[in-house]
Each structure stands twice: as structure tokens, then as C-alpha cells.
């Protein structure tokens, strides 16, 4: 078997390392259009925010390829797939044969066809997708005072937050009625907008961008035009209007494409059993998965199936959890969050404290989480994501889904209320009753009780409790009778 991988992004590079974890022999070639080592796209917003350098987000060491016998063609683009000959033709003129072809070409940013974008974006306007885009944005940002981010989805908000952190005055222009409308319900979107406002980011909602404004020919961008006729000025315009699967090669090769390359649960093209597709260019069922977790799961499944490590491995869809990466904005969202109270089949829990930027919502059906939002305060996100991921039954104590530790808090019992059977000293297994008995035999200080019962002589953690009980017993004794 020989394997050729087209694409060395999040999905392609993960597949290559997963495959080599299981099989060190099979000839393996990977084409990457970008010249640099594969990097973690999730961390681009960190680069934008200045908390990671562009050279610090690599995913695979360049030396790894050689050590692991992988033919890595970085900076080489595949221009054609010849399914009949089972070869791929590349920009460097090479022709590489394959027995199994893995398409992991990902996606490209979607730029709306509006005036000002016909011949490519004008200087100062950048579509945010790759590390190169990131560098371009930072380059412009270094001399810009104001920025417009077109698109109030996950990526747009992360970009806006990064730029605001760099001191730019930022406006997010968003077509829908609230921010991140795919992941959030209107209530959460509103609280998020309020949080962003506090961080110096203005959001314009239901705002349709109709064109980019630039100076004379080839001059730098000056802002965006809205359908309302308003103009939002910006020295920098970041386009974050979503992505579209990169399926040009696959389409030209005659593979069945819907929105992505259509695959079955072994990630095999429904057209050609020698072709697999993973990541944002592939479509399983009706879904093109746009997040990293499903892409990595697909990479694992495909490596299992191709190497025989687990021939039963299947990709049967994934649950998507979104987590915003923006300093001072904690946000986790998953599943169906738009249900309202009026839906008789679902149970909706909500908690909001808009002035503190907190909004929490859990949607429950058949005792399982089917959707959730945690905004502002996410200390139960770990629990919720795992319950959602595994479709696990929910705790009887529903409040613990919102507030950590609500279930287990045990207030220190006062000596008065504590039953005699209660263990005071766990290290030496001494109960309140034994302490009382010791006191009744004449011990009048914690030290005397300790010497007799060994209470508090282990970890020492019950010393306060022991002193409290002895003091209380002393008090009882001196209290006037009747």
C-alpha cells in the first residue's frame, strides 16, 4: 500500500502522525501548499492577540518527517488528480502514484461578492484564515487606529478581541440579529455584545455590508459601506464571513461533491474506494464539520482503518463544542441552544446576570444535554462538555450543571449539632462521642483529650474541631442549670 495525502493542515498533518503511530513502513507522501511546518489553526487568534509568536504554533517538527520516513512536499501544490492512473500531478511537475489517496484540502475563506472585492481585496483588507493572513493583519494593524471586522461569528469575534487587545478601536459588522447566531440564542448573543462593548468592541447587528471603501485605485481601504447607507470607517478591514470547503481538485477528478467530498463512515468517497476525504473538505451525511475535534477524530478513524489497527473503527458523526478563545471572554457553547420554554419536549434551564456578563443555559431532552451555553463563567464547562459528548444521563442535582460544588458542599458542623457518632478525627477514628466520654472522665483540654484518644495526632486537621468540642463541653458545664 502507498498513501498520498493532499493537504497538510489540521486534518492532513494529524492523519500523517496518527498513521505513523500505527505503521512505520507504508510509503507515505504528504503535499502541503503552505511552505512552513503545519501549524495549529486554533492558535491563530493567539497570534493575533500577541500571546503566541507565529513560529510558536507548529504541530509537527520539521525533522519529524525525515525521522519517520515521510515524504513531505511542503510548498508544493497538487494541481490534478488522475483517478484512472491513480496519480497526483503537482505544481513542481512531479507525478506521484498512490494506492490510497487522502484528500484533506480543508477550506478557504468566503469573501462575499460585493463591490470593492472584484479584483481581490484592496490593501488593508484581509480575509482571516491562514498564518499568512494573520501576519498580513498584524502588519496592517501596526499602523492602523481603527478596524472593522466583517462577520460576528466565532472567528470574527476572536479577531476583534485580539485587535482590541492591541489597542485598536474595533467595530464588528454582523448580518444576523445577534452575535454567533449559529451557536448562541438571542439572549446569550446580547450578553456577549455587552461584554465585548466593555472591552472596547462595538457590534453593529443586522448590518449588511454592501461594499468596501478604498481610496483611489490600489489605495488602502478606508472602511465598509452598509445597506443602510452608513459607512463604517476603518484603517483595517478583516473579513471573517465564514469558509467554504476547498473541493476544486476533487470536483475536477469527478468525485461526488455536495458541499464537501461525500464520504461514508470509513471516510471513503462514495465515488471511488481508493479515495478518502477528511476534515473541512469532506462531508458525512449532511454535515461538513468545521471544527478541529471532528477532523482529528476522522484522522484517527482513518488511520485505524487503513493500518488495520482497528478495522471496525467508524466515523458516525461528531458532537460539536465551540469555545471562544478571547481574553476575558469565557464562552462555551454546544448543540441545540435555540429552544425556548414553549417547547413541550425539552427542559430549558437558564441563569442570567447580564450586568456581570453571565449567561447560562442548558437544554435537556430525555435526561440528556442536547445543548448548552456557558458565558462569562465556565467552571462547569468540563462537566457539561463530557455529559454532552457522551450523551450521559444527567445528575439528579441539576444546579450542579451551572454552579460547581453545589452538590457536595458540606458546611462544618457545629459541635452542638454534630451527632455523637460523627467521626471527628479520621486519622485515628475518634468520634465526638468518644471525645465527650473522655471529657466526662475528666480531661479538660484538647491536649488532654488528644493524649487519651489520639484525636488530632495524625494530620492535625481536626485540631480546631477538637478544641471547639472541648470548649463547648466546658461551656455546657459552666452554664447555669435550668
Amino acid at each position: 500500500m502507498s498513501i498520498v495525502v493532499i493537504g497538510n493542515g489540521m486534518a492532513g498533518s494529524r492523519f500523517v502522525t496518527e498513521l505513523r503511530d500505527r505503521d512505520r513502513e507504508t510509503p507515505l507522501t504528504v503535499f502541503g501548499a503552505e511552505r512552513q511546518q503545519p501549524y495549529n489553526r486554533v492558535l491563530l487568534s493567539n497570534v493575533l492577540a500577541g500571546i503566541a509568536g507565529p513560529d510558536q504554533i507548529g504541530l509537527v517538527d520539521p525533522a519529524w518527517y525525515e525521522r519517520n520516513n515521510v515524504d513531505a512536499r511542503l510548498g508544493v501544490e497538487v494541481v490534478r488528480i488522475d483517478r484512472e492512473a491513480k496519480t497526483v500531478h503537482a505544481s513542481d511537475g512531479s507525478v506521484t502514484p498512490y494506492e490510497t489517496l487522502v484528500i484533506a484540502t480543508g477550506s478557504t475563506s468566503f469573501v462575499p461578492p460585493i463591490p470593492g472585492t472584484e479584483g481581490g481585496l484592496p490593501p488593508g483588507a484581509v480575509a482571516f484564515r491562514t498564518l499568512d493572513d494573520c501576519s498580513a493583519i498584524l502588519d496592517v494593524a501596526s499602523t492602523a487606529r481603527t478596524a472593522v471586522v466583517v462577520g460576528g461569528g466565532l472567528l470574527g469575534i476572536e479577531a476583534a478581541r485580539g485587535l482590541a487587545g492591541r489597542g485598536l478601536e474595533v467595530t464588528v459588522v454582523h448580518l444576523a440579529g445577534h452575535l454567533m447566531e449559529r451557536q448562541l440564542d438571542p439572549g446569550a448573543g446580547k450578553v456577549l455584545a455587552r461584554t465585548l462593548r466593555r472591552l472596547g468592541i462595538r457590534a453593529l447587528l443586522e448590518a449588511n455590508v454592501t461594499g468596501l471603501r478604498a481610496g483611489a485605485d490600489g489605495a488602502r481601504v478606508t472602511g465598509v459601506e452598509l445597506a443602510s447607507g452608513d459607512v463604517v470607517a476603518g484603517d483595517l478591514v478583516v473579513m471573517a464571513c465564514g469558509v467554504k470547503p476547498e473541493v476544486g481538485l476533487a470536483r475536477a477528478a469527478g468525485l461526488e461533491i455536495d458541499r464537501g467530498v461525500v464520504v461514508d463512515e470509513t471516510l471513503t468517497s462514495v465515488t471511488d474506494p481508493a479515495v478518502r476525504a477528511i476534515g473541512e473538505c469532506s462531508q458525512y451525511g449532511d454535515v461538513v464539520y468545521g471544527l478541529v475535534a471532528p477532523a482529528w477524530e476522522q484522522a484517527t478513524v482513518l488511520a485505524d482503518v487503513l493500518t488495520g489497527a482497528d478495522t471496525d473503527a467508524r466515523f458516525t458523526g461528531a458532537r460539536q463544542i465551540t469555545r471562544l478563545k478571547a481574553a476575558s471572554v469565557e464562552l462555551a457553547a454546544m448543540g441545540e441552544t435555540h429552544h425556548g420554554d414553549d417547547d413541550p419536549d425539552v427542559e430549558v434551564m437558564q441563569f442570567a446576570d447580564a450586568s456581570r456578563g453571565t449567561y447560562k443555559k442548558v437544554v435537556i431532552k430525555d435526561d440528556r444535554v442536547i445543548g448548552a451555553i456557558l458565558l462569562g463563567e465556565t467552571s462547569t464547562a468540563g462537566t457539561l462538555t463530557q455529559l454532552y459528548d457522551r450523551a450521559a444521563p444527567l445528575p439528579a442535582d441539576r444546579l450542579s450543571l451551572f454552579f460547581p460544588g453545589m452538590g457536595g458542599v458540606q458546611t462544618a458542623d457545629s459541635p452542638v449539632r454534630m451527632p455523637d457518632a460523627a467521626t471527628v478525627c479520621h486519622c485515628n477514628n475518634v468520634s465526638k462521642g468518644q471525645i465527650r466520654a473522655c471529657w466526662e472522665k475528666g480531661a479538660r483540654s484538647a491536649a488532654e483529650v488528644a493524649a487519651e484518644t489520639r484525636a488530632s495526632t495524625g494530620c492535625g486537621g481536626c485540631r480546631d474541631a477538637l478544641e471547639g468540642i472541648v470548649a463547648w463541653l466546658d461551656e455546657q458545664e459552666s452554664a447555669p442549670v435550668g
Partner: protein
Amino acid sequence: MPPEHSRDMTETPTHCPYCALQCGMTLGGSPVRVTPREDVPANRGGLCQKGWTSAEMLTVPDRLTTPLMRARRGAPLEPCSWDEALDRIAAETGRLQAAYGKDAIAVFGGGGLTNEKAYQLGKFARIALGTSQIDYNGRFCMSSAAAATNRAFGMDRGLPGPITDLGQADTILVVGGNVAETMPPFMRHLTEMQDRGGALIVVDPRRTATARQAGLHLQPTPGTDLALANGLLHLALTEGLVDEEYIAARTNGFEAVRTVVNGYWPDRVERITGVPVPYMRETVRLLARGGRSLILTARGAEQHARGTDMVTAFINLALALGLPGREGSGYGCLTGQGNGQGGREHGQKADQLPGYRKIDDPAAREHVAGVWGVDPETLPGPGRSAYELLSALGTDGGPKAMLLFGSNPVVSAPRATAVEERLDSLDLLVAADFVLSETAQRADIVLPTAQWAEESGTMTNLEGRVLRRRQAVRPPDGVRSDLEIIAALADRLDAPGKWSCEPAEVFDELRAASAGGLADYSGITYERIEAEGGVFWPCPSEDHPGTPRPFLDRFATPDGRARFTAVEHTGAAEDVDQDYPVYLTTGRVLAQYQSGAQTRRVRALVEAAPEAFVEMHPDLAERLGIQEGADVRVASRRGTATVRARLTDAIRSDTVFIPFHWAGKGRANLLTNPALDPMSRMPEFKVCAVRLEPATPNGAKL
């Protein structure tokens, strides 16, 4: 004072028989009375219930005082003379070795043996029996931490400094350790730190007594600690909290680690571990706030099929924050068994010679063979690790006989029924113990030994401090010390070398054998230990002060730099699925110790912790129809245990916990998974998949 009582009035300062904290205690009076010592920093006058009641072990009613032997397999164990027992062992081992080769005899030791016994047992295997087949139960204890610290620092010593450094720390992260139950007086140091304003952070799937005292408790899915550590390092990087200067000056290999942890961004780790991102962020902030920070791991992070890598991930975090080799900071492993530290240094490990030397290193063989007075060529090579050794017993090419000292693998080894089968398939099983442990019950010959307060020697505690164990009482008539047994067998086997029965003489030989090794004891004497309150190894000469804090100037690697190793999360060897949908984790309770062979014989401890139980969340219990106190059948792919339900919301609802101290139907190790770590050969005690059902029709209490 009547003269006949004078001997009883002698007060003997010594240490507790149980865990690696080695609390100081004084024994005196008749019956022997225990008083905690104030002059030992580890416990400062504290003791737990196990320590207070330890003297009861000296008078247990089922104490063995005569050798026992079976006439043949299936016949009962019957008293015999020492000569009969020893002669038969010598004859049988000779016969089996003639028929099957030297490796036909296996030796199995323990982390509770003194340094002198551990040393002598390793020597006995190598030059009296000539077998490579020796290992010990420490393999089940902390071998993963040992492998990880050797790889990172070039040396494996439990704590990075004296235990009193803990109280002076600003932040301590305890990973998978429940010290409040396993070594309660240890908590005094953590409490002291907290009273000074320090922060205690505990990582544990259960809200244990230790976690309850912590300011921050991270409660991960079992088997995901590595992802958590990588996630913490990822955060340290993105928040600019790593110590780049230290990394450049004192370490190698960081770039590869950076690349790997780039794949552990916070929300991915949150999804894997269930630990919320804000808690991870707070943990990193506290560890990196510039004061003295310690990261300590224990069995929870180590007893995994990827235990070495799990520990490595935490060492990577410590190194990236610049902690190891800085006074008062660092990485440490919380040793478990009483002499878990010394027991892994002097040659009862399959791949090791005294002084923490490697058995396949020609220079090491030459040195040790010189001390033993034999030709280095005659020393066997590395043998099988503990579980592999137990699994090979009685098989084709495996050992036909085993001599067992200070261990009870029928209770403590994973997948215990398979271990029983292997033991039963031997031609000869010899157990040296002071009571008839579950493993001794299956032996052909049982040799009654002296215990703890009846003999002397040295123990090396969790700090790496060598301590004196002193004899307080005479052993009962008919009983011999392990050193006497080894000497008598060596004599019958015509072994070369000296076989002293005097601990002091054996210690002097150990000093010579360890000289120049990593664990160099050559400068340590009984007199110095007494005068100085213990001596920290390495101590290469009598005028050397010992080494309380290694690595301050350089690490023990060839170039003096610590080594980063990039490690990836792979999850538990056996994950939950439809058939076995719940995680099982195993561990300890306060009132019992290890396989319970000792503590299950102490009345107060049995009252406190009479039997095994399964701890589960009320939500899980409700779904399974199980009530508090009901009998529950817990099944894994390897066996079934029946234990009582104990409901508590202190455990995750996807996980149950069973302590492993008991034999019989509640034996946790009937269930555990013997998947082994590729480096340390540690079995995965801490996570496997089980299913639970009520053992009684309605799930009700009987």
C-alpha cells in the same frame, strides 16, 4: 524499679513499620507501647491510627513461629524443623536448576524490606542462585516515577528536598495522591504551607480527604492526567509564564515539547479531562507566581499503562516553569512503601545492581562483582519485571520455583486470579513471612521471619533520607531474620562470598557495593545516621554532608542538563464501552496498608475499615438500582468482585473506586488490567472498565 522490669523500660527510638513517611516513634514497655517522636521532621510528634496501633503486630495470635511444609501438593501445611525446610529448598532448587537452568528459580522481594535485606536478596539471587529472575512489588508502586525521573533528571530520588521545604512552599500541586489517608502526618506540612498563605492544589478523580483541604481541586476523568499536564503547559506558554532563561540554561529538548503541547489547547483538554479551563488557568498562575512551587505525583499519576509518560508530562511542566533544581521548588514523587525508595536502589529490581547501577553496564558489573568476590562474567543479565515474572511462573521457559520475601502478590498484583493460577503451577513456592498471608497460604514451604521491631537495619524514606530501624524486642523463639534465612540457604547452596546475619556488616558491604553509583551510600554509617537524624543520599564519603537537595548546580545527566521528552495523551488502555460502561479506579484507605497482611490483623484497624467497598456517586447508584450498603457485583473482563456500596457525591458519576487491601470476594485486583507501561512495566491499576449490578434482587441492603 524491680530489676526484672528494667529491660521492658528501655525506650527504643525507631520508625513506623508502614509507609514511606517513616514516622518517628519510640517503642518501650511490656506490652510494647508506641510514643510518637517529636525530633523526626516527617511527623513532628504526629501518628496515624496505623502507627499508634503498630505494636499490636508484635502479638498477633496467628504469628508464625515454626516453619511449615507440605509433604506434597494438596497436602496441608504442617510444622517442620528449620533444617528440614532449608534442606528441602536447597535440594529442590538444585534439582530444578539442573533440569531447567539457573533461571528456573525466581525471587520476589518487597519495598518493605530494609536496605540490608533488599541488598542481600539481590546478591543471593545473582550469586547464590545465579538467576536473573528477581523482581519486587515496588514495580507495582512507583516504577513509573522512577523511570520518568531517571529519564528527565538522570536520577530517581523521591522528594527534591527535605520534607520541611513543603511547609515553606507557596504552591504545591499534588497529582493522584491522597496523603490525608495514606500518610496523615504528611498533611501537617501542607497545612503549615496553607497557614502561611500557600496554595494547595489536588488532582484526583475523587474529592478525597486531601482534595477537601485543597484550595483548588481538579477532578479529571481517570486516565487523562497526561492531557491535563500538557494542557497546563500549553497555558503556561500562551500566558507567558514559562521560564525561558532556565529552559535555555538548564535543559534540553524543549522545542519538541512545545510542538506537542500546541495540540493541547485549553478547550480540547477540558473536553478530554472534564477539568474546566478556569481551574487550569488558576493552577498555572499559582504554580508560576514566582515563589516556591512543588509538583508532587503519586500512584494516581503513575499506575497507568502510560505511567512513565504521565509523570513525564508533569516533569515537563515543572521544568518549563523552572522549578527543579531550585531550592524549595521542584518535582517530587510521593513514595509509597516503607522502604520503597531504598528498596529500588540496591539490586532487587530485575535490571539493577546495588547503588542504582544498571545490570547491563559492564563497569557496574565489574565493580559489584569485585565487592562480592566473583567473576563479573558469572553475574546474570536483566530478568523479567514483576508482573511478567509472575505471569511466566510455571510456563514453558518460565521459572519452576519462587522464593518470596515480604510481599503478598495474590492480593496486590493485577488480575489476581491469573496470578494465583501461575503460583499454583509452580513446583515449589517458598514464602518468608511472619503471618500466613494469602500468598503464603499457597506456598509449599513457609519460613517464619522476624518483623520490624524485632530486628534492625536501615530504611530510606520518601525524602531520600537514610534512617535507622532499631530492634526493640526479641523475636519469638523459632523465628529467624531474613538475613539468617538467606545466609543459611547460601551456605547450603555453596554460594561464594560472605553472608553475614548482622545488619551492620551487611550495610558496610552495601556501602562498598553502592560506592560510585547513583545511589551512593558509601559515606553513610549507622553512627552518622544516629548523630545527624538521618543522612540524605548520595553521600560518597564519610566527610560528605549528604545531599538534601540534589540538582541545585547540575542534573545527574551526562551533560548536567535536564531532559524534556514530548509525550502524547492516548487514554486508558481499556476505555469504557457499552458492555463495561464505568471506570474503576483503585487505591487506599486510611486504616489499612497495602495488601493488608499486617493491618487486617490489628483490631482497631479492622473496626475502622472492616471490608472492601465500592464508592459510587448516588446518581450512578440510582440508575443501577443500588442502595447504600447493598452488595454490588462489579465485573471486568478479568473477573468479578462483590463489595458493599458506599454512596458519595465525592466521586465522578462515571467512575467507581474500590480500595485494594482485602482478600477474598472483595479483592479489587480481581478486576484490574495488567496492561504494562512500556518503560517501567507498571500495570494499569488506576483505570479499567467495569459494569456493576446489585448482588441481591432488589439492590437493597441485606
